[in-house]
Protein backbone atom coordinates (compact mmCIF):
# COMPACT_ATOMS: atom_id res chain seq x y z
CA UNK A 1 0.00 0.00 0.00
CA UNK A 2 1.27 3.40 -0.98
CA UNK A 3 0.82 6.58 1.04
CA UNK A 4 -1.52 7.81 -1.68
CA UNK A 5 -3.99 5.19 -0.51
CA UNK A 6 -3.19 5.74 3.15
CA UNK A 7 -4.09 9.39 2.63
CA UNK A 8 -7.54 8.41 1.35
CA UNK A 9 -8.37 5.64 3.84
CA UNK A 10 -10.21 6.20 7.06
CA UNK A 11 -11.49 3.94 9.79
CA UNK A 12 -15.02 2.87 9.05
CA UNK A 13 -15.92 1.41 12.43
CA UNK A 14 -19.44 2.12 13.61
CA UNK A 15 -19.56 5.09 15.94
CA UNK A 16 -16.14 6.44 15.00
CA UNK A 17 -16.50 10.11 14.09
CA UNK A 18 -12.98 10.88 12.96
CA UNK A 19 -11.20 7.83 11.62
CA UNK A 20 -8.51 9.78 9.79
CA UNK A 21 -5.58 9.47 9.57
CA UNK A 22 -4.94 5.88 10.43
CA UNK A 23 -1.72 5.57 12.41
CA UNK A 24 0.90 3.46 10.68
CA UNK A 25 2.82 0.70 12.41
CA UNK A 26 5.78 -0.27 10.29
CA UNK A 27 7.30 -3.73 10.08
CA UNK A 28 8.55 -3.54 6.54
CA UNK A 29 8.71 -0.79 3.94
CA UNK A 30 9.63 -1.35 0.31
CA UNK A 31 10.47 1.27 -2.29
CA UNK A 32 9.45 0.89 -5.92
CA UNK A 33 10.50 3.39 -8.50
CA UNK A 34 7.74 4.73 -10.75
CA UNK A 35 7.67 7.42 -13.43
CA UNK A 36 6.82 10.88 -12.20
CA UNK A 37 3.70 12.38 -13.72
CA UNK A 38 3.41 16.08 -13.05
CA UNK A 39 -0.23 16.30 -14.16
CA UNK A 40 -1.24 13.61 -11.71
CA UNK A 41 0.60 15.29 -8.84
CA UNK A 42 -1.00 18.65 -9.60
CA UNK A 43 -4.42 17.05 -9.80
CA UNK A 44 -3.92 15.20 -6.53
CA UNK A 45 -2.32 17.97 -4.52
CA UNK A 46 -5.61 19.69 -3.65
CA UNK A 47 -7.04 16.43 -2.33
CA UNK A 48 -4.11 15.44 -0.18
CA UNK A 49 -4.23 15.96 3.57
CA UNK A 50 -0.72 17.31 3.78
CA UNK A 51 -0.12 16.90 7.50
CA UNK A 52 -1.12 13.25 7.31
CA UNK A 53 1.23 12.66 4.38
CA UNK A 54 4.15 14.29 6.16
CA UNK A 55 3.52 12.29 9.29
CA UNK A 56 3.04 9.02 7.41
CA UNK A 57 6.18 9.47 5.32
CA UNK A 58 8.22 10.17 8.46
CA UNK A 59 6.89 7.01 10.04
CA UNK A 60 8.04 5.19 6.92
CA UNK A 61 11.52 6.64 7.31
CA UNK A 62 11.35 9.47 4.77
CA UNK A 63 11.62 12.94 6.25
CA UNK A 64 12.19 15.22 3.26
CA UNK A 65 8.68 16.65 2.99
CA UNK A 66 8.21 20.22 4.28
CA UNK A 67 5.81 20.67 7.20
CA UNK A 68 3.56 22.90 5.15
CA UNK A 69 2.85 23.04 1.47
CA UNK A 70 0.85 25.22 -0.86
CA UNK A 71 0.04 24.90 -4.51
CA UNK A 72 2.64 27.42 -5.65
CA UNK A 73 5.29 24.92 -4.58
CA UNK A 74 4.19 22.64 -7.41
CA UNK A 75 6.35 24.81 -9.68
CA UNK A 76 9.46 23.49 -8.01
CA UNK A 77 10.92 20.31 -9.51
CA UNK A 78 12.54 19.46 -6.24
CA UNK A 79 9.25 19.67 -4.39
CA UNK A 80 7.51 17.57 -7.04
CA UNK A 81 10.15 14.87 -6.76
CA UNK A 82 9.74 14.64 -3.00
CA UNK A 83 5.97 14.71 -3.19
CA UNK A 84 6.06 11.99 -5.85
CA UNK A 85 8.40 9.81 -3.83
CA UNK A 86 6.35 10.05 -0.64
CA UNK A 87 3.03 9.54 -2.39
CA UNK A 88 3.79 6.76 -4.86
CA UNK A 89 7.12 5.09 -4.20
CA UNK A 90 6.96 4.13 -0.54
CA UNK A 91 4.98 0.97 0.14
CA UNK A 92 3.92 -0.33 3.52
CA UNK A 93 4.54 -4.02 2.93
CA UNK A 94 4.03 -5.43 6.43
CA UNK A 95 2.64 -3.74 9.50
CA UNK A 96 -0.69 -2.33 10.59
CA UNK A 97 -3.01 0.63 10.35
CA UNK A 98 -4.45 1.76 13.65
CA UNK A 99 -7.78 3.51 14.09
CA UNK A 100 -7.02 6.87 15.76
CA UNK A 101 -10.19 6.76 17.86
CA UNK A 102 -10.51 3.16 19.00
CA UNK A 103 -6.99 1.80 18.64
CA UNK A 104 -8.33 -1.12 16.56
CA UNK A 105 -5.57 -2.54 14.41
CA UNK A 106 -6.02 -3.36 10.76
CA UNK A 107 -3.17 -5.71 9.80
CA UNK A 108 -1.23 -5.14 6.57
CA UNK A 109 0.15 -8.27 4.94
CA UNK A 110 1.91 -8.50 1.58
CA UNK A 111 1.06 -4.83 1.15
CA UNK A 112 -2.69 -5.40 1.54
CA UNK A 113 -4.49 -3.82 4.50
CA UNK A 114 -7.26 -5.98 5.88
CA UNK A 115 -10.08 -3.51 6.46
CA UNK A 116 -12.77 -6.15 7.05
CA UNK A 117 -14.85 -5.20 10.06
CA UNK A 118 -16.08 -7.58 12.72
CA UNK A 119 -19.81 -7.94 12.97
CA UNK A 120 -20.07 -5.73 16.04
CA UNK A 121 -18.13 -2.95 14.29
CA UNK A 122 -20.59 -2.53 11.41
Amino acid at each position, binding site marked *: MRLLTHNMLSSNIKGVTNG*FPLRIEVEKVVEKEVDLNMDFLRNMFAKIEWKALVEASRTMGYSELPDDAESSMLDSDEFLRKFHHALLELHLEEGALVCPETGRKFPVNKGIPNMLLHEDEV
Partner: protein
Amino acid sequence: MASRPELQAPPEIFYNDDEARKYTSSSRIIDIQAKLSERALELLALPDDGVPRLLLDIGCGSGLSGETLTDNGHQWIGLDISQSMLDIALEREAEGDLILGDMGQGLGLRPGVIDGAISISAVQWLCNADKSSHEPRIRLKAFFGSLYRCLARGARAVLQVYPENLAQRELILGFAMRAGFSGGVVVDYPHSTKKRKEYLVLTCGPPSLSSATPKGKGEDGESGSDEDSSDDEENQSVSVSDRHRPRKKQKLNKKVKGREWVLRKKEQMRRKGNAVPLDTKYTARKRKARF
Protein backbone atom coordinates in the same frame (compact mmCIF):
# COMPACT_ATOMS: atom_id res chain seq x y z
CA MET B 1 -26.55 -24.74 -16.96
CA ALA B 2 -24.76 -24.04 -13.72
CA SER B 3 -26.61 -21.85 -11.28
CA ARG B 4 -25.56 -18.30 -10.55
CA PRO B 5 -22.35 -18.06 -8.49
CA GLU B 6 -24.20 -15.71 -6.14
CA LEU B 7 -26.49 -18.57 -5.18
CA GLN B 8 -23.74 -21.08 -4.52
CA ALA B 9 -21.68 -19.56 -1.72
CA PRO B 10 -20.63 -16.22 -0.19
CA PRO B 11 -18.11 -14.38 -2.42
CA GLU B 12 -15.13 -14.91 -0.11
CA ILE B 13 -15.86 -18.67 -0.30
CA PHE B 14 -16.89 -18.89 -3.95
CA TYR B 15 -13.79 -17.01 -5.07
CA ASN B 16 -11.38 -19.50 -3.52
CA ASP B 17 -7.93 -20.39 -4.82
CA ASP B 18 -9.35 -22.62 -7.57
CA GLU B 19 -11.82 -20.06 -8.84
CA ALA B 20 -9.23 -17.29 -8.59
CA ARG B 21 -6.74 -19.35 -10.56
CA LYS B 22 -9.06 -19.17 -13.58
CA TYR B 23 -8.44 -15.45 -13.69
CA THR B 24 -4.89 -16.13 -14.83
CA SER B 25 -5.42 -19.36 -16.72
CA SER B 26 -8.55 -18.84 -18.77
CA SER B 27 -7.94 -16.59 -21.74
CA ARG B 28 -11.72 -16.31 -22.11
CA ILE B 29 -12.25 -14.87 -18.65
CA ILE B 30 -9.30 -12.57 -19.14
CA ASP B 31 -10.69 -11.38 -22.43
CA ILE B 32 -14.18 -10.77 -21.04
CA GLN B 33 -12.90 -8.88 -17.99
CA ALA B 34 -10.80 -6.70 -20.27
CA LYS B 35 -13.71 -5.92 -22.59
CA LEU B 36 -16.10 -5.11 -19.75
CA SER B 37 -13.50 -2.87 -18.12
CA GLU B 38 -12.74 -1.02 -21.36
CA ARG B 39 -16.42 -0.31 -21.78
CA ALA B 40 -16.82 0.75 -18.14
CA LEU B 41 -13.91 3.14 -18.50
CA GLU B 42 -15.43 4.55 -21.67
CA LEU B 43 -18.76 5.11 -19.88
CA LEU B 44 -16.89 6.83 -17.05
CA ALA B 45 -16.33 9.62 -19.59
CA LEU B 46 -13.31 11.15 -17.87
CA PRO B 47 -12.12 14.46 -19.30
CA ASP B 48 -10.04 13.84 -22.38
CA ASP B 49 -7.01 15.78 -21.16
CA GLY B 50 -4.45 13.03 -20.61
CA VAL B 51 -4.32 13.69 -16.86
CA PRO B 52 -4.12 10.44 -14.87
CA ARG B 53 -6.98 10.14 -12.36
CA LEU B 54 -7.39 8.38 -9.05
CA LEU B 55 -9.97 5.67 -9.64
CA LEU B 56 -11.60 2.98 -7.57
CA ASP B 57 -12.15 -0.61 -8.67
CA ILE B 58 -14.82 -2.21 -6.51
CA GLY B 59 -14.56 -6.00 -6.46
CA CYS B 60 -11.17 -5.62 -8.15
CA GLY B 61 -10.45 -9.33 -7.76
CA SER B 62 -7.46 -10.54 -9.70
CA GLY B 63 -6.65 -7.07 -10.96
CA LEU B 64 -7.64 -7.79 -14.54
CA SER B 65 -10.03 -4.85 -14.61
CA GLY B 66 -7.41 -2.71 -12.90
CA GLU B 67 -4.96 -3.57 -15.62
CA THR B 68 -7.21 -1.75 -18.06
CA LEU B 69 -7.10 1.31 -15.81
CA THR B 70 -3.31 1.10 -15.60
CA ASP B 71 -3.02 0.67 -19.37
CA ASN B 72 -4.95 3.90 -19.73
CA GLY B 73 -2.53 5.67 -17.44
CA HIS B 74 -4.64 5.93 -14.30
CA GLN B 75 -3.88 5.28 -10.65
CA TRP B 76 -6.33 3.04 -8.84
CA ILE B 77 -7.31 1.56 -5.52
CA GLY B 78 -8.95 -1.85 -5.61
CA LEU B 79 -11.23 -3.36 -2.99
CA ASP B 80 -12.15 -7.03 -2.77
CA ILE B 81 -13.50 -9.41 -0.17
CA SER B 82 -11.60 -12.46 -1.43
CA GLN B 83 -8.02 -12.97 -0.29
CA SER B 84 -7.56 -15.63 -2.99
CA MET B 85 -8.48 -13.18 -5.72
CA LEU B 86 -6.18 -10.50 -4.26
CA ASP B 87 -3.36 -13.04 -4.14
CA ILE B 88 -3.77 -13.48 -7.87
CA ALA B 89 -3.67 -9.70 -8.27
CA LEU B 90 -0.33 -9.71 -6.40
CA GLU B 91 0.92 -12.47 -8.64
CA ARG B 92 -0.09 -10.50 -11.71
CA GLU B 93 1.78 -7.56 -10.19
CA ALA B 94 -1.23 -5.27 -10.27
CA GLU B 95 -0.13 -1.66 -10.13
CA GLY B 96 -3.02 -0.40 -8.06
CA ASP B 97 -3.17 -0.60 -4.28
CA LEU B 98 -5.25 -3.48 -3.00
CA ILE B 99 -7.52 -3.51 0.01
CA LEU B 100 -9.17 -6.52 1.59
CA GLY B 101 -12.63 -5.26 2.43
CA ASP B 102 -16.37 -5.74 2.10
CA MET B 103 -18.20 -3.11 0.07
CA GLY B 104 -21.36 -3.99 2.00
CA GLN B 105 -19.74 -2.56 5.13
CA GLY B 106 -19.25 0.75 3.34
CA LEU B 107 -16.06 2.13 1.83
CA GLY B 108 -13.79 3.73 4.41
CA LEU B 109 -12.58 6.57 2.24
CA ARG B 110 -12.36 10.30 2.83
CA PRO B 111 -15.08 12.44 1.22
CA GLY B 112 -14.74 13.81 -2.31
CA VAL B 113 -11.30 12.41 -3.14
CA ILE B 114 -11.98 9.80 -5.83
CA ASP B 115 -12.21 10.84 -9.52
CA GLY B 116 -14.28 7.87 -10.66
CA ALA B 117 -15.20 4.28 -9.83
CA ILE B 118 -15.72 1.12 -11.82
CA SER B 119 -16.97 -2.26 -10.75
CA ILE B 120 -17.09 -5.37 -12.92
CA SER B 121 -19.57 -8.14 -12.12
CA ALA B 122 -19.48 -7.58 -8.37
CA VAL B 123 -22.30 -5.41 -7.00
CA GLN B 124 -25.09 -7.98 -7.50
CA TRP B 125 -23.40 -9.98 -4.74
CA LEU B 126 -24.80 -7.44 -2.28
CA CYS B 127 -28.32 -8.67 -2.93
CA ASN B 128 -27.60 -11.93 -1.11
CA ALA B 129 -27.77 -12.43 2.61
CA ASP B 130 -24.76 -14.64 3.22
CA LYS B 131 -24.73 -14.39 6.97
CA SER B 132 -27.54 -14.14 9.47
CA SER B 133 -26.33 -10.64 10.19
CA HIS B 134 -26.58 -9.65 6.53
CA GLU B 135 -29.47 -7.48 5.50
CA PRO B 136 -29.11 -6.72 1.75
CA ARG B 137 -30.92 -3.40 2.03
CA ILE B 138 -28.66 -2.18 4.79
CA ARG B 139 -25.58 -3.32 2.90
CA LEU B 140 -26.70 -1.69 -0.36
CA LYS B 141 -27.39 1.51 1.54
CA ALA B 142 -23.99 1.46 3.22
CA PHE B 143 -22.25 0.77 -0.07
CA PHE B 144 -23.94 3.43 -2.19
CA GLY B 145 -23.88 6.01 0.59
CA SER B 146 -20.14 5.61 1.10
CA LEU B 147 -19.49 5.49 -2.66
CA TYR B 148 -21.35 8.74 -3.12
CA ARG B 149 -19.41 10.43 -0.33
CA CYS B 150 -15.94 9.44 -1.50
CA LEU B 151 -16.47 10.56 -5.10
CA ALA B 152 -15.68 14.10 -6.20
CA ARG B 153 -18.76 16.11 -7.16
CA GLY B 154 -19.69 15.39 -10.78
CA ALA B 155 -17.60 12.21 -10.81
CA ARG B 156 -19.09 9.01 -12.15
CA ALA B 157 -19.35 5.41 -11.05
CA VAL B 158 -19.91 2.76 -13.69
CA LEU B 159 -20.99 -0.56 -12.27
CA GLN B 160 -21.37 -3.53 -14.61
CA VAL B 161 -23.81 -5.92 -12.95
CA TYR B 162 -25.56 -9.22 -13.47
CA PRO B 163 -28.84 -8.75 -11.65
CA GLU B 164 -30.76 -11.98 -11.22
CA ASN B 165 -34.03 -10.42 -12.32
CA LEU B 166 -35.87 -7.16 -12.80
CA ALA B 167 -36.61 -6.78 -9.11
CA GLN B 168 -32.93 -7.06 -8.26
CA ARG B 169 -31.95 -4.42 -10.78
CA GLU B 170 -34.63 -2.09 -9.42
CA LEU B 171 -33.40 -2.74 -5.90
CA ILE B 172 -29.80 -1.87 -6.77
CA LEU B 173 -30.73 1.18 -8.82
CA GLY B 174 -33.14 2.34 -6.15
CA PHE B 175 -30.44 2.45 -3.50
CA ALA B 176 -28.10 4.25 -5.87
CA MET B 177 -30.71 6.96 -6.45
CA ARG B 178 -31.50 7.24 -2.76
CA ALA B 179 -27.82 7.85 -2.06
CA GLY B 180 -28.03 10.92 -4.31
CA PHE B 181 -26.73 9.58 -7.60
CA SER B 182 -28.37 10.48 -10.87
CA GLY B 183 -28.16 8.35 -13.99
CA GLY B 184 -29.52 5.01 -15.05
CA VAL B 185 -28.84 1.72 -16.73
CA VAL B 186 -27.03 1.34 -20.05
CA VAL B 187 -27.73 -1.96 -21.76
CA ASP B 188 -25.34 -3.13 -24.47
CA TYR B 189 -26.74 -5.62 -26.99
CA PRO B 190 -30.16 -5.83 -25.30
CA HIS B 191 -31.42 -8.22 -27.97
CA SER B 192 -28.73 -10.82 -27.47
CA THR B 193 -29.06 -13.20 -24.55
CA LYS B 194 -25.34 -13.95 -24.70
CA LYS B 195 -23.82 -10.55 -25.31
CA ARG B 196 -26.27 -8.51 -23.29
CA LYS B 197 -24.45 -6.49 -20.61
CA GLU B 198 -25.80 -4.00 -18.10
CA TYR B 199 -23.99 -1.01 -16.69
CA LEU B 200 -25.26 1.31 -13.99
CA VAL B 201 -23.93 4.68 -15.02
CA LEU B 202 -24.14 6.94 -11.98
CA THR B 203 -23.16 10.55 -11.59
CA CYS B 204 -22.44 12.13 -8.26
CA GLY B 205 -24.83 15.03 -7.85
CA PRO B 206 -28.15 16.21 -9.28
CA PRO B 207 -29.15 15.42 -12.89
CA SER B 208 -27.58 17.62 -15.52
CA LEU B 209 -26.67 17.45 -19.16
CA SER B 210 -23.55 15.49 -18.32
CA SER B 211 -25.40 12.93 -16.22
CA ALA B 212 -27.76 11.92 -19.04
CA THR B 213 -27.46 8.18 -19.55
CA PRO B 214 -25.53 7.33 -22.71
CA LYS B 215 -26.86 4.96 -25.34
CA GLY B 216 -26.11 1.26 -25.20
CA LYS B 217 -24.30 -0.56 -27.96
CA GLY B 218 -26.38 -2.55 -30.43
CA GLU B 219 -29.59 -1.04 -29.08
CA ASP B 220 -31.29 -1.02 -32.45
CA GLY B 221 -30.84 -4.73 -32.80
CA GLU B 222 -27.89 -4.59 -35.17
CA SER B 223 -24.90 -6.74 -34.33
CA GLY B 224 -26.59 -8.66 -31.56
CA SER B 225 -25.59 -11.53 -33.78
CA ASP B 226 -23.00 -14.26 -33.48
CA GLU B 227 -20.20 -12.11 -34.74
CA ASP B 228 -18.58 -12.69 -31.39
CA SER B 229 -20.23 -15.76 -30.01
CA SER B 230 -17.30 -16.67 -27.76
CA ASP B 231 -18.24 -13.73 -25.57
CA ASP B 232 -21.02 -15.48 -23.80
CA GLU B 233 -22.47 -14.79 -20.42
CA GLU B 234 -19.51 -14.69 -18.09
CA ASN B 235 -21.60 -15.33 -15.05
CA GLN B 236 -22.44 -18.78 -16.26
CA SER B 237 -19.00 -19.56 -17.48
CA VAL B 238 -17.14 -18.63 -14.33
CA SER B 239 -19.19 -21.07 -12.37
CA VAL B 240 -18.50 -23.94 -14.72
CA SER B 241 -15.59 -25.86 -13.33
CA ASP B 242 -12.65 -26.65 -15.59
CA ARG B 243 -13.55 -30.30 -15.43
CA HIS B 244 -16.58 -29.70 -17.62
CA ARG B 245 -14.76 -27.77 -20.26
CA PRO B 246 -13.86 -29.48 -23.48
CA ARG B 247 -10.34 -30.85 -23.19
CA LYS B 248 -9.12 -29.22 -26.32
CA LYS B 249 -9.83 -25.79 -24.99
CA GLN B 250 -7.73 -26.33 -21.89
CA LYS B 251 -4.79 -27.44 -23.97
CA LEU B 252 -5.13 -24.42 -26.18
CA ASN B 253 -4.95 -22.13 -23.18
CA LYS B 254 -1.76 -23.73 -22.01
CA LYS B 255 -0.03 -23.19 -25.29
CA VAL B 256 -0.51 -19.45 -24.99
CA LYS B 257 2.02 -19.26 -22.18
CA GLY B 258 5.51 -18.90 -23.53
CA ARG B 259 8.96 -19.06 -22.04
CA GLU B 260 8.70 -15.57 -20.64
CA TRP B 261 5.62 -16.46 -18.65
CA VAL B 262 7.23 -19.59 -17.27
CA LEU B 263 10.37 -17.71 -16.27
CA ARG B 264 8.34 -15.05 -14.51
CA LYS B 265 6.32 -17.67 -12.64
CA LYS B 266 9.48 -19.49 -11.61
CA GLU B 267 10.98 -16.27 -10.35
CA GLN B 268 7.83 -15.58 -8.31
CA MET B 269 7.97 -19.06 -6.80
CA ARG B 270 11.64 -18.55 -5.93
CA ARG B 271 10.87 -15.29 -4.24
CA LYS B 272 8.34 -17.14 -2.14
CA GLY B 273 11.15 -19.46 -1.09
CA ASN B 274 10.03 -22.49 -3.06
CA ALA B 275 12.49 -24.93 -4.58
CA VAL B 276 12.36 -24.30 -8.31
CA PRO B 277 14.44 -26.03 -11.00
CA LEU B 278 17.16 -23.94 -12.63
CA ASP B 279 16.36 -22.08 -15.83
CA THR B 280 18.02 -23.75 -18.79
CA LYS B 281 17.67 -23.67 -22.52
CA TYR B 282 15.14 -26.44 -22.07
CA THR B 283 12.86 -24.34 -19.90
CA ALA B 284 9.43 -23.93 -21.53
CA ARG B 285 10.86 -25.35 -24.74
CA LYS B 286 8.30 -26.64 -27.19
CA ARG B 287 8.17 -30.41 -27.16
CA LYS B 288 7.77 -32.51 -30.22
CA ALA B 289 4.48 -34.29 -30.39
CA ARG B 290 5.20 -37.96 -29.94
CA PHE B 291 2.78 -40.67 -30.77
